[in-house]
């Protein structure tokens, strides 16, 4: 068999490993394994290329790979956990950049050699365009997350129109490359520049919680760039791996959008940031409210070991006593410890919560009163506050002007995460705002308690 055949066979093997790796990466238990598999696939692909692809400038390549490895490893090791997202963005930019560079290299050598088939030129244009856009877009995303530029969405008037014009111009240049070989280098430069600008202008209007979606989308783009490069080089390995990443990245992006209740179009066209601003600019007086989906809440609970449920009047209003029991049963079934913290004045009559929870047959031993439960919050992973408000208002501890100052409250804020469910930001019986909702370890899951718990149960089971 000829060497190229072997190389191609190994590429297919690598592709199989990529596929298996990606599959495993999407399940918590096998994720690490999946990553390892994929990296083995990459190793195989590299070795195959080096060994079977004919005359290569080994010295140059080894040099490049050593430099790249050192930089990559340093970044990967030095970076702090909180900076992971921007790291991914940065790496992704390099990937896109590499594709564009390869296409560019091919462009110069192949056109230099007189090859200008429509197919070649158009795949080169595509690769360069997507690769460059990925590079600059990723760099912007990195800069935003790293705080080098403002993390807030940056918008200007006519942004959409501007982007559209740029995109049209770029496509025109690309067509030019194919149709008007005379000006091919100029058009090529035009494509590169416009792609670079577009990468910036498409990314800059996005901010805050939407950044991960954008990074995921850029990741998908870098796959597309690699696939396009694969067509330039007529290389199986690049085509399979690139289109894999392109497609799966798109799916992941859509999953992430769905999790945030956004459409993909919303994200791509930069309208996201604006919506976001509206939502957070409301009446919450400087409180930084984090609103989570039940799916995310489910993940948080999944990772917890000790959970304290704090029922309040809202639970009674929603008649969610059975729903809360179902969720608690499920969590207990997974070996977690679940307790209920009953504040003496929760609800609207003495013993309101007891009546409610007795109806759902929740064992008395799990119900703890204020004095018993407060020390338990210290080592509690998640406190779930269900339709309670005044009884968990930390103002009672320190704000002398508060009408509830001096009332003993449930110290839910001592637990690692506080998951709060209510329908709105409206106050409770005492009519006062609750600063707890804005705490760093607080997470709001809005909605009617019963509906929310039912959805949560579903999501827990789906994990």
């Amino acid at each position: 068999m000829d060497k190229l055949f072997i190389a191609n066979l190994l590429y297919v093997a690598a592709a199989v490993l990529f596929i298996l790796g990606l599959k495993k990466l999407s399940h918590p238990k096998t994720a690490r394994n999946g990553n390892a598999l994929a990296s083995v696939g990459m190793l195989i692909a590299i070795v195959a290329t080096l060994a079977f692809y004919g005359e290569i400038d080994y010295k140059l390549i080894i040099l490049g790979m050593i430099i790249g490895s050192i930089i990559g490893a340093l970044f990967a090791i030095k970076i702090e956990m909180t900076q992971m997202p921007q790291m991914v963005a940065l790496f992704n930019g390099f990937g896109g950049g590499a594709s564009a560079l390869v296409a560019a290299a091919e462009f110069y050598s192949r056109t230099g050699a007189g090859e200008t088939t429509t197919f070649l030129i158009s795949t080169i244009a595509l690769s360069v365009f997507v690769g460059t856009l990925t590079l600059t877009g990723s760099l912007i995303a990195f800069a935003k997350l790293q705080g080098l530029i403002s993390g807030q969405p940056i918008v200007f008037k006519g942004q959409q129109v501007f982007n559209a014009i740029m995109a049209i111009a770029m496509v025109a240049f690309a067509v030019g490359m194919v149709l008007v070989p005379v000006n091919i280098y100029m058009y090529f430069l035009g494509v590169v520049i416009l792609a670079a600008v577009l990468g910036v202008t498409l990314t800059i209007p996005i901010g805050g919680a939407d950044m991960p979606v954008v990074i995921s989308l850029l990741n998908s783009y870098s796959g597309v760039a690699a696939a396009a490069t694969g067509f330039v080089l007529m290389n199986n390995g690049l085509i399979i791996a690139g289109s894999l990443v392109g497609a799966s990245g798109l799916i992941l992006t859509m999953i992430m959008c769905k999790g945030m209740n956004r459409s993909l179009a919303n994200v791509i066209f930069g309208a996201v940031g604006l919506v976001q601003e509206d939502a957070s600019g409301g009446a919450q007086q400087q409180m930084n409210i984090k609103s989570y989906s039940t799916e995310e809440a489910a993940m948080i609970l999944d990772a917890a070991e000790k959970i304290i449920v704090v029922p309040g009047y809202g639970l009674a209003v929603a008649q969610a006593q059975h729903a809360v029991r179902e969720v608690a049963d499920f969590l207990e079934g997974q070996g977690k410890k679940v307790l209920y913290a009953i504040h003496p004045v929760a609800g609207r009559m003495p013993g309101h919560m007891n009546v409610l929870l007795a109806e759902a047959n929740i064992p008395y031993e799990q119900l703890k009163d204020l004095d018993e439960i407060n020390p338990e919050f210290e080592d509690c992973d998640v406190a779930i506050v269900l339709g309670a408000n005044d009884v968990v208002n930390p103002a009672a501890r320190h704000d002398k002007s508060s009408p509830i100052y001096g009332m003993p409250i449930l110290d839910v804020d001592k637990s690692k995460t506080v998951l709060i469910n209510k329908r709105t930001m409206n106050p409770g019986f005492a009519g006062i705002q609750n600063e707890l909702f804005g705490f760093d370890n607080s997470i709001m899951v809005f909605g009617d308690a019963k509906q929310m718990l039912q959805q949560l149960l579903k999501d827990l089971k789906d994990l």
Partner: protein
Amino acid sequence: MIVAIPKEILSGENRVAATPATVKEFLKNGLTVQVESGAGNHSYISDQEYTDAGATIVEDKTALFGGADIVLKVNHCVEGEASLLKEGTIFTSLFQTTKEIDAVKALADKKITGFSMHLIPRTTLAQKMDALSSQSNIAGYKAVLTGASHLGVYMPLLMTAAGTIPPAKVMILGAGVAGLQAIATAKRLGAQVSAFDVRPVVKEQVESLGAKFIEVESSSDDGVGEGGYAKETSDDYKKRQADLIKEHIAKSDMVITTALIPGRPAPILIPKDMVEGMKPGSVIIDLAAENGGNCEVTEQDKIITAEGVIIDGTLNIPSSMPKHATQLYAKNIATFINYMVKDGEVNLDMDDEIISGSMFTHEGNIVHEPTQHALNQ
């Protein structure tokens, strides 16, 4: 044939043996019904309602008894009533035949065919006639309400601004029909309920109501006899069982006892020293009071306080819920009578388990073994 429904004359009895609904059933089956005037008063049934259903109201007790082919009552045949009956009449009521020997004799002498609702076999088929069940069920339910009213504490767990109220501890001894209903009712009110019974099948039933069954855990260190049985009936086992019950009673706020052994005095489950061990203010409801009581201190038909413990030996508890007690009893007895009657005529099929089983006098003889036995003693 004429079915007669007399007014009950035992004091404190609020029930009656028929309702307008069962009167209609009798009529449909070809019988005629006569009701003594005022019979339904205590069950909130007026003479008018009986008349509307198709019964005749009879003012005179002698005429009623004398003219009847079938007499249906709640209580046994009280003094003088037997003499009013004509020979061959069928008399049916809740009749403790081994206790009311004189009344049995009076009926036998008069050649009355006597049936006792107490003797209806406890089979699946006979459940519609099972007055013991329907009335015990009321007793079990009522016992908890009465007990809770006596109690100085809440039944449910309540966590309030003024402190946490722990749930009351309720212990049920004897988990037959009354005991099971008591468990259910106490659980409904939010109490912590545990129960004990000598019959082992009851454990599953108690647990099926969400209560705890008290039993000595078979310690695995001292070998277990054939299938565990030998050990469980050993003296050591019995002693440990008794200790366990004592321990639970001492911690209980309320104890309801329902243990009966058919045809015999009720077993003493709570001797005096156990009462002394209880908390002041706790309550014992002794549903076995009629048969001597499960508590040594119980006084029949009295509510007493001994050693700070309230002990309620009230008799005839079902009668305190007359509307439903009557409705259910009337339905039970009507089902029984209609079971024997075809087209207006009584058919005493002696091969039928239910009919022969519940009969105690017939043609001058006492046909119920244990009653015969009690008479001979």
